[in-house]
C-alpha cells in the first residue's frame, strides 16, 4: 500500500513527461518535418514516417535525425540507399538539439498520443497558380509580400534571362520532379525547412498565393526541355589561354620599346 502510494506520483510524473515530450515532438514535426514527410500519408519528398521507429534501429534513427548530412557523408548504407530512392534530395541538417531529437522520437513512436491519428501532407494550397506571376516573384520583378528575399538571389531556374540566378542554392528547374511531385514541392514551399533558408524565411514566410504561383512556375519550368549542358572541349580552353597569353605578349612587345629611358642615360649616350 505504502509502495503504491509512493510509486503513484513517480508513475504520474513519468507519464506526464512522456506526454509532454510527445506533444513537443509534434510541434517540432509540424514546424520542421512536415514539409517533406507524412505519417501515414504516403511518400512526399521524403519517406512516410509511419512506424519508422520500428523499421529502423533507434540509435541510427537518432543519429540520422540529428545530423543526416554527417551520416550520409560517412557512407552509411541505409542513408545512401534512401538518397538514391528519393531523387537524390538529401535531408538537410535541421540543427536539432538532442532533447528535440528525443522529443521527436517520442512523438514518432506514438503519433496518435497527441490526438491526431494521421498526419497528411502539409496543407498544400495548390490553388490556381499563375506561372508568369511565379516567374516574376522568382526573378524579383515582383516583391515577396512578407519581405522575403527573391529566389533569384540564390537559385537559378529555366526561363530566366541570360545570366540566370545565383549559385548558392541548387538549380530549381527540375525541383518538382525531384521533390516527388506537386504535393511534395508545395509542402516544401509552405515551410522552406532548409537551415540556410530558415534563417531568412522563418520570420518572412511565403503567402499561400505566392506559394501557388511559384509552384505553378516550377511546374512550367520542369516541363521545359532540359537545357543542354554546354560542354566545351578542353582543347578550347587551351587554345583560348595560350592564344590570349600570346596576344598579351605581342601587345607588350609592341609597347616595350616605348618605355622611357632615363634622362641621365640619354644625356650620357648623347655624350
Amino acid at each position: 500500500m505504502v509502495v503504491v502510494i509512493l510509486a503513484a506520483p513517480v508513475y504520474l510524473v513519468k507519464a506526464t513527461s512522456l506526454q509532454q515530450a510527445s506533444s513537443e515532438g509534434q510541434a517540432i514535426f509540424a514546424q520542421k518535418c512536415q514539409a517533406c514527410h507524412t505519417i501515414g500519408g504516403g511518400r512526399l519528398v521524403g519517406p512516410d514516417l509511419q512506424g519508422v521507429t520500428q523499421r529502423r534501429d533507434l540509435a541510427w534513427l537518432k543519429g540520422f535525425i540529428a545530423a543526416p548530412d554527417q551520416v550520409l557523408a560517412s557512407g552509411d548504407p541505409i542513408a545512401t540507399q534512401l538518397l538514391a530512392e528519393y531523387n537524390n534530395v538529401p535531408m538537410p541538417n535541421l540543427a536539432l538539439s538532442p532533447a528535440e531529437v528525443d522529443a521527436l522520437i517520442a512523438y514518432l513512436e506514438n503519433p496518435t498520443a497527441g490526438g491526431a491519428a494521421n498526419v497528411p501532407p502539409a496543407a498544400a494550397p495548390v490553388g490556381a497558380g499563375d506561372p508568369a506571376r511565379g516567374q516574376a516573384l522568382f526573378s524579383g520583378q515582383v516583391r515577396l509580400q512578407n519581405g522575403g528575399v527573391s529566389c533569384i538571389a540564390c537559385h537559378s531556374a529555366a526561363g530566366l534571362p541570360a545570366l540566370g540566378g545565383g549559385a548558392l542554392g541548387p538549380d530549381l528547374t527540375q525541383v518538382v520532379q525531384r521533390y516527388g511531385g506537386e504535393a511534395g514541392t508545395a509542402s516544401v514551399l509552405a515551410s522552406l525547412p532548409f537551415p540556410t533558408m530558415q534563417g531568412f524565411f522563418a520570420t518572412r514566410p511565403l503567402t499561400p498565393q505566392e506559394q501557388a504561383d511559384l509552384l505553378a512556375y516550377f511546374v512550367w519550368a520542369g516541363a521545359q526541355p532540359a537545357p543542354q549542358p554546354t560542354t566545351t572541349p578542353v582543347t578550347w580552353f587551351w587554345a583560348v589561354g595560350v592564344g590570349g597569353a600570346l596576344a598579351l605578349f605581342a601587345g607588350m612587345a609592341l609597347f616595350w620599346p616605348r618605355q622611357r629611358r632615363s634622362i641621365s642615360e640619354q644625356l650620357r649616350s648623347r655624350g
Partner: protein
Amino acid sequence: MNVRAHMSMLFHLDKCIGCHTCSVACKNLWTDRKGAEYMWWNNVETRPGSGYPTQWENQEHFQGGWEFKDGKLRLRLHSRAAGLLKLFFNPALPSLEDYYEPFTYRYQDLFNAPAGDDQPTAIPISMITGEPMEIKSGPNWDDDLGGSNIYARNDPNLEDVPAEVRAQLDELERVVFNYLPRICNHCLNPACVAACPSGAIYKRQEDGIVLVNENRCRAWRMCVAACPYKKVYYNWSTGKSEKCILCFPRLETGQAPACAHSCVGRIRYMGVLLYDADRLPEAAMVPDEQLVDAQRDAILDPFDPEVIAAAKANGLGDDWIRAAQLSPVYQFVKVWKLALPLHPEYRTLAMMFYIPPLSPVVSVIEDGLFRLDLSDANHDFELFHRLSAARLPVQYLANLFTAGNQEIIRQTLVKMLAVRLYMRRKTVDGEVDEKLIKLLAEAGTTPQEAEAIYQLTTQPTLEERFVLPPYHREMAVEAWKDPLAHKGEAGLGYLQVPRRGE
C-alpha cells in the same frame, strides 16, 4: 581675409659655398634607412647643371606642377579620369636611374683580401641589390661642373638663353656656377596633395608643413610624379611615400631644421609668414610674369592692425604674430623684395625663398691675357649699369626664380649690388658721396634699408636668423589628454601601450 601662418625657409644663394653639410645633416637624421638610401630630402645642386633627379625641371618629361590654360588650373600630370586610367601604370614617374642607384663599397675586402702584389680595393656595391655595380651617377654627380659638361649644357633653364651666351658658359675662362640647395617647398598649392588618390598628403594648418600620412599612403606614387620639384620620394622598402618634413619635431621644440641649423655659410633663415588663404586662387592664376608679385601680394604685413585682427580671429596667438613681425623671411621677401620662389611657373606657390646669387663680370681674352670686360673708369659701377656683363645670364636666373621675368631679377640684383657698393664705400673710404646715395635711390633703396640688409645678410645672430614661434605642444596636449597625466609621462609616453598578460 583668411590669415594663416607659414613656416618658411630662405636661402641666401650669394652665401652658399656648396659644402653639402645640410644634405649630410638631413641624411643622417632622416634618410639613413633601408629604402631611403637614394633619397635626399635636402640636396645641393650646381647650377648650371641638371640637378637631382637628372633634369627634374624638364616637365615635358616628368609632368610635374600645374598648368594654367583657358582660365583654369589643371595638374599637368593628369585629369581625374586619366589618373584613374593610369592608376597602375604612370609613365611620368621618375625611375631609379633618374635619381641614381645608391651605392656603398665593400670595405671588408680591404681587410680580407689575400696577400698579393696589388693593393686591395673596396669595390662599389649596390645598396639595393648588394651586388657589385658600376657607378653611373650620383646625387651630385655634376658637382662643381665636375667631369663633363653634358649635365650643365642640358640644364633646362638654359633653353631660351641666347646661343652666344650659352657658348660663353662653355668656355673655360668664362665658366660660372652657383649652388642651389633644395628642400621640399611646402607649397601653398601643392601638386602632390592634389594628385594623391588616397588623400594621404596634407598641409598642416598651423605652420603649412606638407606631410604624408603613411598610414593612409597606398603607394600610388602620384605625388612623386606630380611634385614639380621631385621632392616626394617613394620608399621601396616600406612601400610608402616620404618627403621633407621641415624637421617639424625640431621646430616644435624650438630648434631650426637640421639643414638650416648645420649650415656652414649661415645662408639659411627661418621665419613665419602670414598669408591670405583666400587670395591663393588668384595668386596661382595670373600670367607667368606676374606670378612673383601675385604671391608677394598674398603674403600679409604682420604689422597691419587689420591683418593682426584677422589672424587672431583665425586663432593665431600673439607670440606667432610677434614671430611673424620679427621674421627675417618676411623682411627679405616682402619688405626688401630680394627673395624669390624657385620656379613660380609651376604654380604651386612654393614657400621656400631664394636670394639670387651675384656673379662676377665676364672676362675677355686679349693678347693671351685675361681682362675683365670693364671700361677703365668706374669699375665699381660697371656691373650695376650693365648686368648683361654678369657671368650668370639674367635670363638664366629669371628662368629659375621669376618664371622668365627678367625685370624682377634685375631689380633684385641691382639692389644687392647697391647695398654692396654702399657698404664697401662706407667701410673702405669711411664716407658716402652723393653719387652713391643717388645710386641707392636708383636701386629703389635707402641708406637705412641698405644698412639693415647688410646687417641681416652678414652679421645676423642665431636668434635673428631663426625666429621660431612657440608651438605650445604642452597646451595642445590638453586637447586629447589630461595634462597632469601627460606630465607623469614627461612627454615620453608609450606609442603602443603594452598590454598586461602578453
